[in-house]
């Protein structure tokens, strides 16, 4: 399942899509808004997405996981718009028969999202703001 939206993410619902009675493990990752960045205090994050392409690139990552590990119970949700401190902008849940595959696949998904998916993050500080990656 792939979900993109501005509303707070429902972690249980996202995990449910990765669960199946054939799985002995579900690994879930949450990317959350941290209150500091390079010594500066962060008030919140703002995410922007090129939605149609982001969906396609997420789909490609899911297909890569299917080819690499044979896993089919994969759930990715990314929020855009404002994400407050402690809230999740990204939830990835992967189910597998044994835990090694879902740990590895979850890391692979998160690492690749940050490389290829057209979603950008802006840090809002008390005294300014900056796009991450620039």
């Amino acid at each position: 399942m792939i979900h993109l939206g501005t509303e707070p993410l429902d972690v249980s619902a996202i995990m449910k899509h990765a669960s199946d009675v054939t799985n002995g493990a579900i690994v879930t990752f949450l990317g959350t808004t941290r209150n500091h960045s390079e010594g500066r205090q962060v008030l919140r994050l703002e995410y922007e997405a090129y939605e149609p392409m982001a969906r396609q690139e997420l789909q490609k990552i899911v297909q890569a996981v299917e080819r690499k590990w044979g896993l089919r119970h994969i759930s990715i949700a990314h929020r855009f718009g404002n994400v407050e401190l402690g809230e999740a902008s990204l939830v990835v849940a992967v189910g597998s028969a044994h835990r090694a595959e879902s740990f590895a696949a979850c890391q692979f998904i998160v690492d690749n999202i940050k490389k290829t998916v057209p979603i950008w993050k802006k840090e809002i500080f008390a005294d300014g703001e900056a796009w991450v990656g620039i």
Partner: protein
Amino acid sequence: MWITIKLFAYYRDLAGTSSFAINVPVNATVSDLCTQIRQQYHRLPKEPYSLLVAVNHEYAETSHRLVEGDEVALIPPVSGGSA
């Protein structure tokens, strides 16, 4: 031929718009388009093209030939974070 350019994040802030139409010669490549954009829209970054470009939602090489009506997105660096 007319191409739609889409800008996001840092590039949208620099250009002051999220989208504009541009007329390029028939058979123009992505590289030709980027050169033309940099000449016409001086506020966009002039750095050597570490910029990623997508044509109709797919990443494209600089040699990719454009066709009428293509949607070209200029993709600034994606939100990295450290592992």
